[in-house]
């Protein structure tokens, strides 16, 4: 369950940053991005997938969260 930081980059894309590995990846898709639920399964630009326990509303970014590798 790594700790990662989610933030928007200059072009507005959602970026996934894994501090331990200094890995920065664009989130290409996220399961829930609506106003009622935000999170779920995320697909990164390098192909890996993570699961984020959904929030009940979009959180204020950047935010550090715990995710599970799928």
């Amino acid at each position: 369950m790594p700790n990662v930081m989610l933030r928007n980059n200059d072009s507005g894309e959602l970026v996934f940053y894994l501090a331990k590995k200094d890995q920065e990846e664009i989130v290409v898709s996220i399961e829930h991005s609506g106003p009622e639920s935000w999170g779920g399964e995320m697909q990164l630009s390098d192909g890996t997938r993570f699961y984020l326990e959904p929030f009940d509303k979009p959180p204020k970014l950047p935010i550090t969260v715990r995710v599970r590798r799928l």
Partner: protein
Amino acid sequence: MAMNREESDKLIQEVLAVYPEETGKQRAKHLMANDPELEKSNKCIVANKKALPGVMTQRGCAYAGSKGVVWGPVKDTVNISHGPIGCGQFSRAGRRNYVTGFSGINIFGDMNFSSDFQEKDVVFGGDKKLDTLISEIDGLFPLAKGISIQSECPIGLIGDDIEAVAKKKAKEIGKTVVPVRCEGFRGVSQSLGHHVANDSLRDWVISKRDGKEPTFESTPYDVAITGDYNIGGDAWASRVLMEEIGLRVVAQWSGDGSLPEFESTPRVKLNLLHCYRSMNYISRHMEEKYGIPWLEYNFFGPTKIVESLRKIAARFDSTIQENAERVIAKYQPTMDAIIAKYRPRLEGKRVMLFVGGLRPRHIVGAYEDLGMEVIGAGYEFAHNDDYDRTFKELQDGALIYDDATSFELEAFAERLKPDLIGSGIKEKYVFHKMGIPFRQMHSWDYSGPYHGYDGFAIFARDMDMTVNNPCWKNVRAPWKPAVSEDEAAAA
């Protein structure tokens, strides 16, 4: 001309052939030929891995990253090298990070404060000694605003509780006391020391004014310069430009910086990040906790300065944007004159770089402004996110070497015959003896600043006076026949 990718790959294979099989296999992962199209580096280069036994690496330790790089330039704190005497003494005042003030009154970086561990401290623990030491410092240097405890290897090994001592003494002397767990054995290079130091600033310094009344009035133009250590005055040369376009620089992290500046930073509007490697951690933290965005910029060479000034100005209103254009226009003639003077003397000269945090990618533009080309670049302690940012700056086919060993550097230099090498003091004399012009690109070789418009003038002059110095023709191994006058003239 730089080699193309196949030639570079071939050269890498030839150089690797010398190693034992396993070493060669490991080192191969750290060497590559550049492809500017690449976005991600994790598939093509391995970085931030432990150096192999038996090779000569150029890296330092976590203590060096914290005490030397991040905490060292802070002017109003006493940084204690906690442990045996050597680490502190050999890292004392050698980095050329400039500060203003009077030694022992309001600046302390030129002295070595050490707990000078002896056997008995290792056996019985050094917390008591640290306690006494902090009281002594407070007595001798009452104007110091704070104290940081930079752990050397033994502290972690014997399990001293420096956090407890720090808390107790902070209360007692009424100053900031920061314990830093930067023991040299942690991590694979000085890079972890940067991270540890950033975390200590996060936990013990910048949160101090959370929830308190602000001590100054904010303006919409407040910024902080982060990741600039004022080598040879770099941060000053950058600061004047920020101020010229109308921004107010509240803090410098950490070149010529101070604790009150750090504590004020949570109130700025934008963090301007020069060295991504050593201060991205604190920038990310401030973005999350205080909602301060951060922006990477590059103040080496007019092309990059112009780009950066526009990028920075774009984050503010039209006044700043107009100011930026005015400033760019103001300096353009001076820059054109510098380029007109030096470019003819430097055109086509080939450069190899091997430096630290940001320079292997950031200085490329400055060389290109002078018509020079960077044919090889490498970092001592980069991570993959640094290489992600490097590919697009370097030309196609340029050699990239991560944590290069001294053998590799020499072998590459022998084959590529660059006209200039930029690296550190450890490499300098080797290449001097090979007859290759050399500049120290960590400390600017007793020169600087190199940032900003003012810096570029000095940079151009320095490169010219190194590359075109007549002495290189006279460097000759004593057992080789002397060259005649005409041959030398032809060369």
